[in-house]
């Protein structure tokens, strides 16, 4: 599975200590699970689990025109960010309106931002970020000296509090969702990819194993990429490369809410193409629910009542709901059901909003 060219995070040895099954994830040797993916999923929904997300790329954007640059780079508008530490989710688009990557950007002040982009797209993203700096007084700095640990679940914050110093606990006290704060040597953010409360914590590489161990000692269970995928899918969160890519616009990826159209004077990369797409109408990303036996999986064909074709972009058995769920990109339909081709048979499934579980409970 792993080869000489795969990279390891600072937590590699800790994963092996916990009995992880490691897999190659876009060139990184990452834990798939530590025994049972479903158990890990349930721990995050009911208690507290943690993920090594050190493979993700942290990029600082600084300079007198950092804000102008990001208002041009991103489809969402960083001008909305007024409070220090406030975060924003956005697509970064190409000229044809396709998604180069999706990311989170933290605002410290108008000359100082931090972004977290995907690992699978690291090199492409860095090239893109640098290319767009032309004409802006801005500096792009990658921060490889941090590991990142996501602690998620209803008890994540109380358990993490046992590991934080007094000053760190003061810094995060009362922090609302989607904020980040630098607290001593940690950057602590109330973000995540599971639909549960918790933190994403950036920690200096040399201190990461110790922090991981402290969290283990505090009763936080290690969770792998398998559970991370089923959790994000239940929460209705997109996975780059699967639910959208450079050929798919945010309008077709349930990311319409991340496009800030006003003010119309703000030009951003892909704006003209998006306006044309909005005018002509696009496919939609919807949720699918199947209560019969079987699992909806990525790549399966979908057919609307009008007879038009679509495709499942992500699908899984939902451990929380006990049946299959999926996200599918389909043409506009007036029906509340579509058919999915499963093992040579067309099966009728329900169409729902692409969000299934939040804070441990079904939202269907």
């Amino acid at each position: 599975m792993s080869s000489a060219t795969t990279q390891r995070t600072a937590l590699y040895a800790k994963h092996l200590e916990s009995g992880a099954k490691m897999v190659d994830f876009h060139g990184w040797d990452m834990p798939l699970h530590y025994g049972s993916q479903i158990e890990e999923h349930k721990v995050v929904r009911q208690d507290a689990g943690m993920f090594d997300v050190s493979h993700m790329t942290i990029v600082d954007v600084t300079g007198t025109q950092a804000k102008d640059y990001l208002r041009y780079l991103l489809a969402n508008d960083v001008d909305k960010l007024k409070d220090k530490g406030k975060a924003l989710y956005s697509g970064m688009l190409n000229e044809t309106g396709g998604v180069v990557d999706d990311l989170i950007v933290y605002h410290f002040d108008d000359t100082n931002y931090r972004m977290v982009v995907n690992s699978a797209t690291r090199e492409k993203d860095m090239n893109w970020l640098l290319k767009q700096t032309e004409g802006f007084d801005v500096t792009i700095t990658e921060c490889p000296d941090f590991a990142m640990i996501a602690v998620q679940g209803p008890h994540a914050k109380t358990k993490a509090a046992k590991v934080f110093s007094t000053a760190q606990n003061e810094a995060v006290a009362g922090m609302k969702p989607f904020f980040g704060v630098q607290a001593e040597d940690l950057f602590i953010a109330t973000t995540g990819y599971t639909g549960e409360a918790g933190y994403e914590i950036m920690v200096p590489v040399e201190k990461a194993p110790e922090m991981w161990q402290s969290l283990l000692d505090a009763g936080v269970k290690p969770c792998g990429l398998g559970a991370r995928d089923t959790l994000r899918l239940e929460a209705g969160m997109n996975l780059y490369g699967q639910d959208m890519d450079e050929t798919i616009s945010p309008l077709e990826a349930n990311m319409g809410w991340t496009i800030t159209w006003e003010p119309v004077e703000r030009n951003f990369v892909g704006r003209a193409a998006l306006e044309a797409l909005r005018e002509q109408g696009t496919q939609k990303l919807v949720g699918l629910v199947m209560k019969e036996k079987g699992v909806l999986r990525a790549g399966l064909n979908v057919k609307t009542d009008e007879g038009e074709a679509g495709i499942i972009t992500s699908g899984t058995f939902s451990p929380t709901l006990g049946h299959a769920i999926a996200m599918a990109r389909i043409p506009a339909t007036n029906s509340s059901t579509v058919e999915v081709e499963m093992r040579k048979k067309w099966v009728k499934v329900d169409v729902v909003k692409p969000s299934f579980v939040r804070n441990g409970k079904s939202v269907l």
Partner: protein
Amino acid sequence: MSTIPKELRYAPSHEWVRPEGDGVYTIGITEHAQELLGDMVFVELPDVGDQVNAGDDVAVAESVKAASDVYAPITGEVVAINEELEDSPELVNSDPFGDGWMFKVKADDEAELEELLDADAYAASIEDEE
């Protein structure tokens, strides 16, 4: 390295076979197979009374990762199925050679057993795969 009990017989497609006497054999999938598949979410079993031929796909083990066919290692009649798997498919993961058994077949011809692998031959076949 996964467990491969000495007293069982194996098909290269990762089913195990245990003699229960009177020509009845219990069948399940190996520990190695469940490791490859990951957490089981559904198991579809044949019906009691079904006539199955060696090599037929007669059951489906569906995990978080994939749906995988389970083949009948011997020819005969299905005389029992593990109904526990309906509500607890995870038994296939936690106890593949015990509570995670799938179905029992009354063999038409017990000589067919001789064509299956013993533990050493099955271990060798897994190594070849890797």
